[in-house]
């Protein structure tokens, strides 16, 4: 209660002093225009009082504070009057002086605090990054060299494995399909390439899969950070957009959106702890307490050629029949989205049927005696995909953010625009892709860049869930460990500078976008 009272009093005092300063400064600079001599005398007295207080406060000379303040104020006032004796400057000059004075008075303090809190620490970090671990000897760019050569922070040695990974070929196929559709449609319309959902979609997903192929083979802290940026930014924005579009105008819109937005209220540390429980694995002989492993092991208990597996196959077969019906319906009514969607969904379902009939699905491994026992997934320990499980936490949190902003942008698309498109005979789908999306592109970029900046600095989730072990290290956590666990301030500062340099372009782009959006 005492602390709260003190804080409240502090707030009241701060607001009071700020208000007094505001009106006082305004009054003072008004004086400069109307009464030049009074202005000079008053500002002289104020400056004098300040100098006097500094002298007494720092024990430069003895004597009580107020005596010094008063003395110097009188001297300052006298100096001000003396300065006014040569004559009063012209009115335009006084007005200009007053404007400049106002500028300095109001901008000065904030610039001072920005300098103290941001600029000076930044410069000092850059300076420290050029020194050795105990900040005593100049080592030049050795710390940056260490970041680039240490296999833990950047390991490109496995790059040839990209070409043997299945992800790589899956990505190539997707991109080829996208290009093929684009070119086929383009030829029909007399162009080499046509950008439309059917071609952009597979290409975008292909590039995403390609990034997985790259990031799972090239390893290290820096690569992990890039991976985070690509996956979390991409998926959060895409899922946020999807949620915003799908929820738009439906009956339970606010409820649905609230549910998706809820995780935003949870701190990163809290989310990390919650998801640790989701991912936790237990020894095979114990019941699984982690949600995901419980499901996985239960699926594993449905061994092929047992009743459980047959029931699963039956259900999945029904789903397949349903999907086939939908696909046929889509083809007959020329609803390509229906047809393609159903066909695509059928692929994993057929795969599940194959797993249940053949090798089995889920967590089950042969035990020491040959009997199948529970086979768990160590979500947080199995590199490199443990990174993805960590990213899921941030996606879970940030999708709500993307959704809210994008939803607002969609609702702000002018109704006339959409109506005009309808009058011209555009379908719902065409309106969305050719009217709504182009209109909200600026918002999408702002959301994406905001997320890039946030994701680049990810720290808490990794710290709480794996402490950077098992190949999940990210720059921010590495920076902390180097600087504060190992007391290597050179390397820690170098990592901080790298992070800073990586964030700045996204930040600058974001600010420019925002300013343009405001204008």
């Amino acid at each position, binding site marked *: 209660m005492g602390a709260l009272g003190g804080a409240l009093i502090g707030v009241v005092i701060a607001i009071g002093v700020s208000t007094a300063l505001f009106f006082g400064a305004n009054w003072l600079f008004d004086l400069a225009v109307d009464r030049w001599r009074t202005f000079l005398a008053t500002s002289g007295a104020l400056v004098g009082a300040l100098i006097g207080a500094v002298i007494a406060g720092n024990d430069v000379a003895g004597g009580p504070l107020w005596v010094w303040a008063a003395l110097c104020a009188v001297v300052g006032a006298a100096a001000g009057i003396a300065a006014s004796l040569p004559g009063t400057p012209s009115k335009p000059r006084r007005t200009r002086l007053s404007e400049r004075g106002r500028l300095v008075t109001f901008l000065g303090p904030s610039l001072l605090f920005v300098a103290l809190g941001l600029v000076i620490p930044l410069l000092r970090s850059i300076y420290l990054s050029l020194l050795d671990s105990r900040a005593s000897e100049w080592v030049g760019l050795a710390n940056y060299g260490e970041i680039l050569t240490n296999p833990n922070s950047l390991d490109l040695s496995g790059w040839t494995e990209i070409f043997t990974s299945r992800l790589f070929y899956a990505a190539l196929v997707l991109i080829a399909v996208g290009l093929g559709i684009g070119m086929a449609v383009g030829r029909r319309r007399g162009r080499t390439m046509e950008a439309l959902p059917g071609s952009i979609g597979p290409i975008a997903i292909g590039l995403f899969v390609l990034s997985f192929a790259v990031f799972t083979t090239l390893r290290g802290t820096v690569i992990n950070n890039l991976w985070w940026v690509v996956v979390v930014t991409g998926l959060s924005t895409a899922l946020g957009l999807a949620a915003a579009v799908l929820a738009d105008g439906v009956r339970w819109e606010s409820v649905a959106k609230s549910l998706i937005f809820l995780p935003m209220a949870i701190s990163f540390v809290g989310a990390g702890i919650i998801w640790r429980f989701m991912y936790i694995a237990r020894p095979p002989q114990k019941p699984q307490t982690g949600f995901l492993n419980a499901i996985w092991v239960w699926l594993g208990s449905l061994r092929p050629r047992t009743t459980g597996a047959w029931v699963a196959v039956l259900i999945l077969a029904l789903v397949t029949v349903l999907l086939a019906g939908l696909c046929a319906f889509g083809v007959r009514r020329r609803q390509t989205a229906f047809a393609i969607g159903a066909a695509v969904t059928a692929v994993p379902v057929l795969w599940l049927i194959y797993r249940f009939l053949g090798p089995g699905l889920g967590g089950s491994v042969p035990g020491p005696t040959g009997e199948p026992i529970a086979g768990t997934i160590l979500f947080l320990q199995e590199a490199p995909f443990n990174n993805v499980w960590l990213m899921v936490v941030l996606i879970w949190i940030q999708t709500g953010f993307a959704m809210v902003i994008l939803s607002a942008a969609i609702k702000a698309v002018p109704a006339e625009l959409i109506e005009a498109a309808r009058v011209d005979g555009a379908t719902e789908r065409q309106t969305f892709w050719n009217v709504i999306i182009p209109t909200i592109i600026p918002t999408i970029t702002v959301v994406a860049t905001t997320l890039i900046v946030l994701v680049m600095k990810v720290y808490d989730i990794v710290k709480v869930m794996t*402490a950077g*072990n098992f190949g999940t290290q990210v720059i921010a956590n590495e920076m902390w460990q180097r600087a504060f666990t*190992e007391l290597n301030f050179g390397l820690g500062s170098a990592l901080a500078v790298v992070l800073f340099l990586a964030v700045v372009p996204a930040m600058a782009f974001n600010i420019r976008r925002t300013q343009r959006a405001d204008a």
Partner: protein
Amino acid sequence: MTHPSHQRNRRRHRVRGLIGVLFAFSLVAAACGSDDDSDDADEAPAATEAMAEESMDDSMDDDMMDESMDDESMDDESMDDDMDDSMDDESMDDSMDDDMMDLSGTKVTVFGPESSEEEAGAMQDALDVFAAATGIEIVYTGARDFSDQINAQAVGGNPPDIAVFPQPGKVGDFAAENWILAVPDSVTSAIEAQWPAGSLDTVTFGGTLYGVPNKTDLKSIVWYNTEIFSSGGFSVPESLTELQILTADMLAAGITPWCVGIESGPATGWPFTDWMEDLVLRVQDENVYDQWVAGDLPFADPRIVGTAQFVLELWNIPGAVYAAGGSIAATPFGDNGEPLVAGDCAMHRQASFFAAFLPEGTSVGPGQEIDVFYFPAVAAKGNRPVLTAGTYVSAFRDAPEVWAVMEFFGSAEYANARQAAQAARQGGGQSGFLSANLDQDLSLYNDLERSFVEILQTASPARFDGSDLMPAAVGAGTFWTEGTSAVNGDKTVAEAFAAIDASWPQ
């Protein structure tokens, strides 16, 4: 997650603060009443007595003090004069004033890694004894990530008055940075005689002492489930070979022999380093160990790599390890207490403090649910190596009350008070606290803990935990992280250890 206990602690601190203030007032009142409120010097412990004599030799004030000592004694604990005298010793050299010893109303903050209800609580209880006697308000705060936080606090310029370092190597780092203060001679001479020869060497740098021992841990022990041993007809192994045979026998009998877990938040990996050190001491010898710890022998040396492979081969025998978190690297080291008692595994190699992680009400000792055997050595060598560890307190602030508390940490009174408090908090069972103080009251320990003391005393050679002596970048850095990578199978031992060598500060 620890929210309620935090709140409870805070409330308790507040109550203690109140009591402390009351004591302070009463002591001020008492000090006004007489010149010196010491008890009879004869009641003081031997070391204090010796010191009191010393101070009498070179001080003019002694007569007066002597007289006052015969005064009727207060109801205060005898510890009171322990510290009064020591303060006299210091203050009398430069000034004559006697009331210098009145430290009531002062405050000393202590920060350390022990954060569990039992350990941190017992620490505060023990300090409260001294607080009650002197009127110094002593507040202990524990944090699981102490190692990181103390660095940030020291760099940021707001360290505690006293920090409890689990790593002598770190004490050396802090001494090199001039963050901690050298222990003054008065304190050194007061505690020196109470500790086994050499136990202050680990925190002596350049001939100057920078720390005072706080507690000792015995690391070379294996906790085992006696029920499994007796029903399966297994006997305690006497050599490393017998231990390997025992492991194989248990596997053949369908018993999971080991519990292993190395997860420990930001310090994940340290239990692996302990296994490594214990086995370097056994499979190799103490000379190799010393060279390795000092950095003269690289991690890439085949003897060190071979030892790590020995450990991992033992752990990687299919079915040999029960890990409550699904895998060794995912299991918090303390989480294995429950499965050990439940019989999910038979043995768990962990330090003496592991008692604090056993489920409440577990009976520990010979013939009880859980017993302990000495981690056996190689029979052919005929030695009995022991790995120890411990915490040391170092001071950041130069003030009489801080040095008074530092001296108390090195005293038998502290060891006794802490032992009693921690045993009480553990429900009268195994306390998990161990001190190497020579003057401590061994009757406060139970049988098992006395056997620990015996293992410590019969050790040859005894070595301090190597990772705690290595530079922080390795001992609290890459040895943990790269070791974890090796355990988790992300890297081979050779790859991981090459990375450790690369990180060793030049």
